[in-house]
């Protein structure tokens, strides 16, 4: 079995347009949740959002050479993070195009961010056919494949909020099997009326910046972003800088409810346990947990109890959704990159907006920036609607 290592990362989110900016915001405890400047919705004044601090025109201007017809915000975010990741891993155009490089992306919104265009196209009242091919979740992956002339295995995953963590899982398995040497994996999602109205209809949007793991938490904030990771076999990455090793993964279904986790956390517990087992380490060896931590009543309660069940003595943990909001299809890979940053730089980032622990669990997230904190193994979680639970364990390279 090939060992899988992380050799490159790229990210754009509400707290930065690249990797160093994201890290600085985390170190400084600077949240990106605010009233949106560019996103248009009747809810723009009511809820804070984790909006990328750039309008479409500015994003597009950064994408020289990328065909701009039919390009959506989800596509643009994906291109920007993808480009940073492949550059960070020093991949040549030939490496990217190679048959032994897989590309596995994820999205839940895709081109549905263009709500009004989609409405007109679907109801045949369109005057501008530019976006007819832009809506599917796979639209951004096809564009990237085409732009970089990628010949290897490609895929797009949608398991709701665990989508891009599953992209990392799938890429790791392809490398472990020896089928590919390298996999560029991650996901993208932009703010969309579709998801804002969907989550609002479920009454789980918070009117204040989300208070993950707080007794008085009042729901999640939606965010947007894209994050891609370059995974390579240890052999292919022999001479490269390695951020981390993908030690193991777990994927389980809660099999309880379409939009809520079971009280016992069946899927949550199983995905964490399976990840530890697959990594061949014990719970006590985990130095840090990057939680799914959406700050909904249901998630934080179940995730807390799940961590207590699996770890007993729960290691330091945080929720970076208090910075970026919930980036849905991108949340898994955004979280994975923050996890790897903690591991690589040996530092823990503070969870924000926390006051009082949840009764009965009494878990308190990491509240201060902790430099020089040795992180040997770290676990990251992503749980989605439909009960799609995924956990990954990263270790020091």
């Amino acid at each position, binding site marked *: 079995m090939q060992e899988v290592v992380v050799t490159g990362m790229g990210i754009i989110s509400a707290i930065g347009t690249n990797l160093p900016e994201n890290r600085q915001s985390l170190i400084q405890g600077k949240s990106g949740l605010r009233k949106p400047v560019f996103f248009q919705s009747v809810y723009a004044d009511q809820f804070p959002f984790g909006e990328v601090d750039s309008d479409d025109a500015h994003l597009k201007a950064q994408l020289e050479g990328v065909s701009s017809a039919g390009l959506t915000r989800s596509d643009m975010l994906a291109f920007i993070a993808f480009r940073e990741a492949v550059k960070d891993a020093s991949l040549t155009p030939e490496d990217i195009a190679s048959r032994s490089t897989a590309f596995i992306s994820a999205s839940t919104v895709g081109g549905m961010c263009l709500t009004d265009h989609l*409405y007109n196209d679907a109801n045949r009242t369109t005057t501008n056919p530019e976006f007819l091919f832009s809506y599917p979740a796979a639209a951004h992956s096809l564009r990237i*494949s085409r732009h970089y002339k990628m010949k290897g295995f490609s895929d797009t995953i949608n398991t709701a909020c665990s989508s891009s963590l599953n992209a990392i899982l799938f890429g790791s398995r392809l490398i472990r099997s020896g089928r590919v040497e390298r996999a560029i994996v991650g996901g993208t999602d932009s703010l969309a009326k579709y998801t804002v109205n969907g989550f609002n209809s479920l009454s789980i949007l918070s009117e204040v910046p989300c208070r993950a793991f707080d007794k008085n938490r009042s729901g999640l904030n939606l965010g947007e972003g894209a994050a891609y990771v370059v995974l390579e076999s240890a052999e292919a990455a022999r001479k490269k800088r390695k951020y981390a090793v993908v030690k193991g993964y777990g994927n389980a279904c809660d099999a309880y409810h379409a939009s809520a986790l079971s009280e016992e956390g069946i899927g949550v517990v199983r995905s964490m346990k399976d990840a530890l087992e697959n990594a061949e380490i014990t719970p006590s060896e985990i130095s840090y947990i990057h939680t799914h931590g959406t700050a909904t009543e249901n998630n934080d309660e179940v995730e807390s109890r799940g961590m207590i069940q699996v770890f007993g003595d729960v290691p330091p943990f945080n929720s970076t959704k208090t910075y970026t909001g919930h980036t849905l299809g991108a949340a898994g890979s955004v979280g994975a990159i923050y996890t790897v940053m903690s591991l690589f730089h040996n530092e823990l980032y503070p969870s924000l907006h926390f006051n009082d622990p949840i009764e009965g669990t009494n878990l308190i997230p990491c509240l201060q920036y902790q430099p020089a904190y040795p992180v040997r193994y770290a676990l990251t979680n992503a749980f989605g609607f439909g009960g799609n639970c995924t956990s990954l364990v990263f270790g020091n390279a």
Partner: protein
Amino acid sequence: MYIVDLACISPQHTFSGNFLSGDPVSHSGTQYEAQEPDYKGIISASALRRMAKALRMGVGAGAFLLNRNPKPDGIVFGTAYGGLDHCLKFLNQIVEYNETTLTPTNFVQSTPNNIAAQLSLMSSNSGYNMTHVHKGLAFEAALMDAMLFLEEDRNRSLLIGATEEISAYNFSIDEQAGLYKKENTTSASLLISGTPGTVCGEGASVFMVQGSGSSGYMAKVMDVAQLTYPEMPDLEETVHTMLRKNGLTPADIKGYIAGFSGDARTDFWYQQLNDSLFPQLKPVAFKHLTGDYPTASAFALWLGCQLLHGTIPPGYQKPDGPVLIYNHYSGIQHGLILLDS
């Protein structure tokens, strides 16, 4: 990867078995609608009412297999769009009611992962659960996923499948994008029409697969491969590599199932591969039966299994060796599945 059981809902009477005994449905126009079974005994009436068609077909065919097989270690689905009809109903409400007074049902029902999730919920399956939405390669990705999962432990089994629906919305968008024929054709004339465009189909094909073939099985998936935006030499090279990897030469292939869709712009791919690598074989087409949709290759796999092991529908022949399934969507995403008895 061994296929031990399968079910299919399609524009033919595949679920009841009448198609296999020689009773094909002839379609005309640009929408080939599925011949859905009565889901009684498979899906509860209350659940059925809430389900979009893609969900209904995928869950119906899937639950049918789950009911009559040992519990698998997970569920993997491929679908380009999932329940798009519900998705766009929700979108229409957003626009028409200016983002107010929305109910969550359509939103929750519309997520593509809801099919695999519903199946796991109905069967209390907390195992591996994955949904691939890679448009014209969503099913091929699900197959690769399943192959990896079973290779990691040969004792495992999985329910895998694909589902797609014709919705008024995706049909509108794809028709405006030029995917479908302008003139009327029928099942009999579609593949010889010689004009641009194809017809839209739908359906769900599901399979119980396991990592070892010790007990009776219908067919063995030897390999799966895919290409995106290829040139013809890329396709031929990929087929050669796939065959070589499995110890085969083009002459060993005894059946060629190809996704001819009647679209004069893109059918040459199938013919050229036929001419250059398998001149000895007469291609087996299927989209005059099903129409075209992003996960149509799952129907092709169902058909391949029937030809290799099951009942041979009148007019078809049993291949006496490995079968290659080649399907592409709009000439952009190309998938290859190698199947043996």
